[in-house]
């Protein structure tokens, strides 16, 4: 699914990722843990194609396609989804309009038939219900006035509707209380399938109690310094990141 080789990334002239190798096979859930400033968010933005994140060396292949050749929306249509750590507020665009525009844009890009209003509404309600997203929330401007938990639930709703093959969850646990975390994790877990891969980026082990990864990587100083099974997360919880050359815990 995803093959990253010797990836070097520069932001504002400063090298943040210094040679990342990462293979994520279909159906696997990889957790990327690391202290603040280790390059976790940079990795997620590079995968999504954000402007200003320059790949200076190495390669990223997604299902055999070179991601560097693809625009942000092309990557999305190809099946990459980034759940934002801080979802943006978009005044004037209702969540419903946004979801419909996004889904139909992706369907169109893939040569599939666009959904009409009736079929779309049925689908979105079906996906929204388990996430406790009601019609009133869908009619509001996207993320405007949403609580932290509502924003994250809305992100998972987008993911559930767009059905990506690779979901990257950037600090999805930040700002969530335990109940909200459970709801979000259930939403994510419901999407686990042999065809879908996930990269769960988190500072804390807590989220991984609910979204149990197959592989855990420790990112520090722009490199993956250790890779292990899910037990690695528990170790980190006890020992902190100090052993990996970082001060922050």
């Amino acid at each position, binding site marked *: 699914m995803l093959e990253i080789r010797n990836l070097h990334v520069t932001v504002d002239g400063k090298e943040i990722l210094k040679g990342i190798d990462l293979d994520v096979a279909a159906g696997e859930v990889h957790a990327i843990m690391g202290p603040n400033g280790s390059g976790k968010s940079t990795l997620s933005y590079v995968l*999504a*194609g*954000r*402007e200003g994140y320059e790949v200076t060396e190495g390669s990223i292949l997604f299902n055999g396609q070179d991601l560097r050749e693809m*625009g*942000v*929306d092309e*990557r*999305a*249509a190809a099946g990459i*989804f*980034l759940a*934002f750590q801080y*979802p*943006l507020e*978009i*005044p*004037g*665009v209702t969540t419903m*309009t*946004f979801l419909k*525009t*996004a*889904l139909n*844009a*992706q369907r169109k*890009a893939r040569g599939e038939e666009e959904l009409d209003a009736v079929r779309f509404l049925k689908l979105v309600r079906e996906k929204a219900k388990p996430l406790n997203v009601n019609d009133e929330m869908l009619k509001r*401007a996207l993320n405007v006035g949403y609580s932290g938990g509502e924003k994250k639930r809305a992100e998972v709703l*987008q993911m559930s509707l*767009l059905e990506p093959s690779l979901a990257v969850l950037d600090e999805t646990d930040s700002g969530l209380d335990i109940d909200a975390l459970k709801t979000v994790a259930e939403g994510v877990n419901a999407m686990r399938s042999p065809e879908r891969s996930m990269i769960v980026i988190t500072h804390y082990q807590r989220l991984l109690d609910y979204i149990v990864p197959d592989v855990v990587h420790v990112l520090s100083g722009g490199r993956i310094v250790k890779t292990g099974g899910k037990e690695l997360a528990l170790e980190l919880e006890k020992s902190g990141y100090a052993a990996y050359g970082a001060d922050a815990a």
Partner: protein
Amino acid sequence: MNEVMTEKAAQNFIDAYESARTVLPGADGWLARRRAAAIEAFAGAGLPHRRLEEWKYTDLRQTLDKAGFAPAPEHKGAVVLPETASASAFSALDRHVLVFVNGRYRADLSKAARLPKGVELRGLADVLTEQWAKDLLERRFDEARQAEQVVDLNTALMSDGMCLRIRKGVKLDKPVHLLFFAADDGASHTRNLVLLEEGAEGTILESHVGEAASFADIVTDVVLGNGARLDHVKLQDESANAVHLATLRGEVGAEARLSSFTLTLGCGVSRGQSFIRFAGEGAEAQVNGAYALRATQHADQFCVVDHAVPRCASNTVFKGVLDGQSEGVFQGKVIVRPDAQKTDGRQMTQALLLSRDAAMNAKPELEIYADDVQCAHGSTVGELSKDALFYLRSRGIPEAEARRLLVLAFLDDVIALAPHEEAREILRGLVSGWFEEASI
């Protein structure tokens, strides 16, 4: 000959007056004298130029000198409207429609039959012998006399216009739609008179379209009696070679409400100016607008609201998007007179620059002489948020569509202030359509 008289465009207007004065409406009565005084005053002042504070960002004199408009011919034959969304805007609505071609009323193309009792809707020439029309034409709307030069020009040369009078307590059954179509090159001068008596209600929709090199000079004088209510929606979308100069002067009586909204898709140079004065307590004025400009279009919005009496509320919001090398201007002033306690006066202008070469000049002002008031003004100029664009694109929305969504969202809250619900939806559609043609 003084310096002003040598100005080419001003001289053209003076010449036009000389050759037309015997055939202009009202040539045999009080109006002839009024016109003579107006042209004399205009000749003394000349056309507005940038050295005047209220014309700081729009040099009308230079614009008209360069364009050299001759009087637009009278157009008698069949007309073919451009096949644009703007030209057919409002046409699906149930409405009375008055068509003006080259600034002149065309009864044969209009449809305003079966008006409710107490509603009069006529061409300018028809009402000049009536006292109410004379009163409106002689009324001093703007104490600061900021519109004087252009109103003098209009008074001297006005050849036609729409006159709407709604009697006490009468409600207009459906909107009056004024469709102004510039079929041929040249200048036209239009004067609209609107009188809503106590408790009367009405809606005016106004569209200005055309592909000619036209100069439209329109003055609309509005008097709202106590408790009257006027909703006004204007659309302006003319050619890159056109110049549009519209002046709205309004006097709003006690507990009356004026709600005016303008969508400016522009032309070469356009200036929309509003001068609103409260004449009675508890009145409200909404003077709002949206604009979308591209290429080398220049659009100037100028608005003065005069709180001459206590307990009135005014709100002015203009929001626009500027692409290409276009230029936007907003100048506004809220004046609160010493006695106008409990005034609520608000003014906001926001612009979104879609190109590095576009420019916006904004100058909102408050002039407050009372102490128990709530007034606010603000101005922002910005670009589309890169983060928001990235967020939308990361969900698979192509860049052009993401930009369109964000721009429509930016304009949506001001369009929501347009008073007529169906018209509002039409304006939304026009802005969306504007985007599809956009080169961004």
